[in-house]
């Protein structure tokens, strides 16, 4: 299986889907001539032309609205956000139009559209450009929210998102784009709404998604040396949550740590905790612990930025807490 970077996997998915279905087009800032701010659309303009790879002005609300309209009229737009921080400007189109059209038109209108771009902290980009905003979108009925961690999932889920009949919000990551992994060639579609056990374990379940998966993996490897077997469940889709997979892992290990980059209040992890307490109460041997981004605005200083984010030592500490193996 070829090893690709996350951005290359996305590029492959876009090209394959544009090849497969001529209603699919890509629009966003610098997706064309510049080949994408993060080079996800490398070569696509040359290959598919300016009608299907559209450079948009710096006007998120405007081009997102164009995309929603195009989807209503039968096309299958992929709207690239340079980062999700900028998409806050476009939120009205995503939330008030894309998410609601099917419902408000009594099924007469459809909105098969993908909004995608990087979320989370990049690196010394300060408060306005370092936000993990997936919980915001996961809040809205009518949207699907996905956040793949690996190149293979990125390809397979983007393909599934483009083929989906409903609006899908996809969180990638500036720090994910260069990560390499094996990616199946050709028709590799990962169904939305399915979590994935990325690592089997028996003592504790670490539930996570997106870039945090890599910290969890690092923590799990270290824990293994201490004789603690951690299972990692990558949610991949945040809306709808894969309840079965979540309940299955807690039934197996009885202890859960949730790791998410975003802020603690009303985070996706909080909803997972709610699910656990209501549907897996009798399977819990310890209170669920969450490792989240600190409840503060992100600092520019590198040391403060690092301190504000989850990392392997924080995850290890949380695991020991739910295993009642805390030191001291």
């Amino acid at each position, binding site marked *: 299986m070829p090893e690709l970077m996350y951005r290359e996997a996305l590029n492959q998915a876009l090209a394959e889907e544009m090849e497969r279905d001529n209603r699919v087009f890509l629009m966003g800032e610098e997706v064309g001539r510049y080949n994408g701010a993060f080079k996800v659309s490398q070569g696509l303009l040359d290959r598919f032309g300016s009608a299907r790879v559209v450079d948009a002005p710096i006007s998120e609300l405007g081009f997102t609205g164009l995309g929603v309209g195009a989807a209503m009229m039968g096309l299958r737009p992929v709207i690239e956000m340079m980062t999700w921080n900028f998409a806050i400007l476009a939120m009205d189109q995503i939330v008030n139009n894309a998410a609601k059209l099917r419902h408000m038109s009594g099924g007469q209108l459809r909105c098969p559209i993908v909004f995608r771009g990087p979320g989370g902290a990049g690196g010394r980009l300060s408060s306005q450009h370092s936000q993990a905003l997936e919980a915001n979108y996961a809040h809205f009925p009518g949207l699907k929210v996905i956040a793949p961690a690996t190149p293979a999932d990125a390809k397979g889920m983007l393909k599934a998102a483009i083929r989906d009949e409903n609006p899908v919000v996809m969180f990638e990551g500036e720090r994910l784009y260069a990560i390499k992994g094996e990616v199946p060639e050709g028709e590799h579609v990962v169904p939305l709404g399915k979590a994935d056990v990325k690592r089997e374990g028996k003592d504790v379940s670490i539930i996570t998604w997106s870039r945090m998966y890599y910290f969890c993996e690092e923590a799990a490897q270290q824990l293994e040396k201490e004789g603690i077997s951690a299972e990692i469940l990558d949610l991949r889709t945040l809306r709808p949550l894969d309840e079965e997979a979540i309940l299955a892992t807690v039934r197996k290990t009885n202890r859960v740590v949730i790791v998410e980059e975003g802020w603690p209040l009303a985070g996706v992890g909080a909803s997972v905790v709610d699910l656990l307490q209501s549907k897996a*109460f009798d399977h819990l*041997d310890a209170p669920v612990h969450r490792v989240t981004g600190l409840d503060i605005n992100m600092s520019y200083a590198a040391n403060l930025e690092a301190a504000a984010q989850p990392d392997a030592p924080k995850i290890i500490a949380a695991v020991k807490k739910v295993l*009642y193996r805390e030191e001291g």
Partner: protein
Amino acid sequence: MATPVQMPALSPTMKEGKITKWLKKEGDKISSGEAIAEVETDKSNLEVEAYDDGYLLKIAVGEDQMAPVGAPIAFIGEKGEKVEAGAAAPAPKATSAEAPKATPAPAPMAPAAAPAPAPRAVAPVAAVPTPPRREEVEGRLRASPLAKKMAREQGLELAELQGTGPQGRIVKRDVEAAMAQPRAEAPAAPALRAVPAPAKKPAFIPVPFRAERQEPVAKPISSMRRVIAQRMAEVKPGVPHFYLAIEVEMDAAMKVREEAKALEAKVSVNDLVIKAAAVALRRSPKMNVSLQGDQVLQFSNVDVGIAVAIEDGLITPILKDADQKGLATISGEARDLAERARNRKLRPEEYTGGTLTVSNLGMYGIDQFIAVINPPHAGILAVGAVTDKVVVRDGQMVVRKMMSVTLSGDHRVIDGAVGAEYLRELKALLEHPMRLLF
């Protein structure tokens, strides 16, 4: 404004109390004078009454939790009123009721040398320690949902498991540890109840052999045990004891008992001893004293304390004016006091006062022992079993029913000669019970 209900001082020695039961729940309407909770003091269980009308807004101290005297245990106020967050935390307050010096002070906690074994058909070897009940310790039993479910499925009593999680929480590994242990059918510990059965033959209870050695189990100290420990640690160095022992021939007294049976009156040896001890006290006023502070209180009434073994301790209810009461009355009252002591239903005035304690371990087959004085009492009689013994009478060896009585006296207020005269009187009364009539 919400009014706090404070932990009342229900006995003179009470410093803190444990809520054993809430009789009302949050939101209930309360009238003043109504009992709202039951409290276990160092002595007994008593009810706490509300002094205000209103609604029980908040319970600040849960069942099985301790609170110092004066600390708010609940709040009463208008319906729906909010209790300030800060107010709910029970703040220890020193409001211990100080007994005026001249009054007969708090009573007798416990003649310690005498603590009788737990009243149960005792099989000393097999005495299985009651497992610690964590509920009693920390207010509630903590267990993870999974541990609860596993214990339920395994038929394990959570209360018998040792929790190793935070704050003693019982978690999966604790249930697994319990499951791994051979389930020795522990002899169901009979509930401690009523009449201390005279130790006949120790019942045979097999001791399960356990291959694994067990760690000692840390067991929290009960309020009563704490008070006993404190007081006894003070009494022995603080009260200079002297001891006088005497043998009493009980043949005549036993005959009285037999004759009482014919009258369908149940009179025990101890009832006779109480009666005789009281009459002797009436005749030896120098013994009927109590040292309190720098005063010696001379009593004119004769009140005798009876040491009663109860679960995890002992208590000394007072049989008042015992010298003036007939044996049937003494017998009935003693039985009633002992019964209510075991159920922790004694009222404070029922274990306060007196100058002398009678502690009897005869029913356990103890021949002779020495008891620790129970201040402010000036003395304690340690009464042994009535046994057939060979004694010399008129130069001949004969068999008589003998009983030993050992007096421990407080040498600060009574002297050896006073004690000796008292014992001689007691002996004479028991050996010639007809003298009790005069």
